[in-house]
């Protein structure tokens, strides 16, 4: 059995499982947010009183927080009251941030866990070696009622990256490369395993970025089999111990030599419309967004700050910095990155999903164009239906913000 089959057979109390089988698995963590949570809780309350396993449920309100209007404030209040009554974890904005940044940070997810989240980017935690996937509100309600979730055991599609990583090439470029290669449904229903010497050398932050975007290729999950870097990351964080599982053969393997890869950008309106940033120099931008569950961690801001240090963003351009969590914000402040951004002319937003999904804090007007370190560039994703979003790494987004056009950081 491979890593996923081993986790899922353990979680379903079976001796073995194989791809294609339907199972019911124990959930170690059940996550909800302010968009998906209210629906899940209302459905739960129609059929149950007490959550089966309150220790497993976590609510993070991050999409429309700090509450953007009365309706979103009511939703957050409803979830806060529910969390208090059920004695489940609820992170206030002063102790939180974007869900997929704070759960690993606070030690809530560990290697070998089964995690479901009523948010499609729940696949992020595969970077820790968890089996982690996005579901809907009804699934979250079912998990609150029963402690379990139904799955079809996915096939594993393995991506092996080798070669020498070029300057300014990040996990974001590697995942864009991969999505560009296999398409937006190239890994539909499958678990994407990221492996090879390039992944072994990749930081945890960049592994989170890669697993986060597995869903953009249709993946059920993305994962990296735990190694020394994973062990270092979880060391000293609170919470339970990691579970160790063996790995085995994958159904399919794709090998990529990445030595010649240059900084990449996904053009509107799908994440698989990928091409080199250096070939998109004609695209003028109105806004740059740096942050999100994809690229809102400390090393992302280190990369952006490295580009912006001592420089100014292009006149007439808005650059919005969204630290992924309060902890990331504090660290970015301590390391001087926030000062670099302020001096460059950026605005610092609180930790929130904000503009990524067109919520608030940087919505685009008709015809405007943004470069963004987020994960989706669908029609109307960040605002008006005639606006456009280009997806890129923090290096590329920062460099483009300085120039006012899309450029590769190598062109600075």
């Amino acid at each position, binding site marked *: 059995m491979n890593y996923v089959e081993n986790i899922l057979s353990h979680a379903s109390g079976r001796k073995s499982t194989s791809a294609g089988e339907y199972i019911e698995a124990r959930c170690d963590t059940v996550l909800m947010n302010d968009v*998906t949570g209210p629906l899940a809780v209302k459905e739960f309350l129609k059929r149950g009183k007490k959550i089966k396993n309150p220790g497993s449920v976590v609510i993070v309100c991050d999409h429309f927080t700090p509450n953007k209007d009365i309706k979103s404030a009511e939703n957050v209040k409803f979830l806060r009251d529910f969390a208090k009554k059920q004695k489940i974890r609820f992170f206030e904005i002063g102790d939180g941030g974007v869900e997929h940044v704070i759960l690993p940070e606070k030690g809530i997810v560990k290697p070998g866990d089964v995690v479901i989240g009523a948010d499609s980017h729940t696949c992020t935690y595969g970077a820790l070696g968890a089996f982690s996937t996005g579901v*809907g509100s009804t699934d979250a309600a079912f998990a609150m009622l029963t402690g379990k979730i139904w799955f079809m055991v996915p096939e594993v599609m393995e991506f092996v990256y080798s070669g020498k990583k070029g300057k300014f090439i990040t996990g974001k470029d590697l995942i864009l490369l991969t999505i560009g290669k296999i398409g937006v449904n190239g890994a539909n229903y499958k678990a994407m395993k990221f492996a090879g010497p390039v992944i072994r050398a990749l930081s945890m932050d960049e592994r989170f970025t890669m697993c986060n975007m597995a869903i953009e290729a249709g993946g059920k999950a993305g994962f990296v089999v735990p190694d020394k870097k994973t062990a270092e990351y979880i060391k000293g964080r609170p919470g339970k111990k990691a579970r160790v599982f063996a790995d085995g053969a994958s159904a399919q393997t794709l090998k990529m030599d990445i030595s010649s890869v240059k900084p990449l950008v996904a053009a509107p309106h799908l994440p698989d419309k990928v091409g080199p940033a250096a070939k998109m120099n004609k695209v003028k931008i109105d806004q740059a967004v740096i942050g999100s569950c994809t690229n809102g961690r400390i090393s992302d801001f280190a990369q952006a700050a490295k580009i912006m240090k001592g420089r100014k963003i292009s006149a007439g351009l808005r650059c919005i910095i969204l630290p992924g969590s309060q902890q990331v914000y504090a660290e970015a402040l301590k390391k001087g990155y926030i000062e670099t951004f302020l001096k460059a002319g950026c605005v610092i937003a609180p930790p929130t999903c904000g503009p990524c999904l067109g919520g608030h804090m940087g919505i685009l007007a008709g015809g405007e164009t943004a470069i963004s370190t987020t994960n989706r560039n669908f029609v109307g994703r960040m605002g008006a239906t005639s606006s456009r979003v280009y997806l890129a790494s923090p290096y590329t987004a920062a460099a483009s913000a300085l120039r006012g056009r899309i450029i590769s950081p190598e062109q600075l």
Partner: protein
Amino acid sequence: MKNIIKGRAYVVGDSVDTDVIIPARFLTTDNANELAAHCMEDLDKDFSKKVKTGDIIVAGDNFGCGSSREHAPIAIKASGISAVIAKSFARIFLRNCINIGLMVFVCDMKKDTRPGDEITVDMQKGEIANARTKKIYQVKPVPEFIKKIVSSGGLLNYAVQRRK
């Protein structure tokens, strides 16, 4: 459960994402009728006026990709759409449909379907017919486990029934 679903085709392309099915600006509510009023608005602003109860969405690949928002299938269902037929579905969207009881069928028929075609789904036979083209398509069979959820009236009813 009805064994025959009949309706007019509303045809869309590939990778119709949940952001266009129900844009985030409407996600502060989970009221089905409010959501239905804005269903597909960013793809076709007249969708809610055009669709009649019973209509069937016929789509290409990867229908419902993107966000996990269950508001998307809820909006479609409350618009009066009786079923969605697609060459393939994005997995979270497919789960959400099964879980809330919106009928979905995997079938590659978009390329020869025109808007307004009369479509008949015979669930017993596992066949879909287009009255204009007289073509008959086989539906990909549904796994037993999924049938159980659907025949219980959705995932939560399944959970409650099992508890008894």
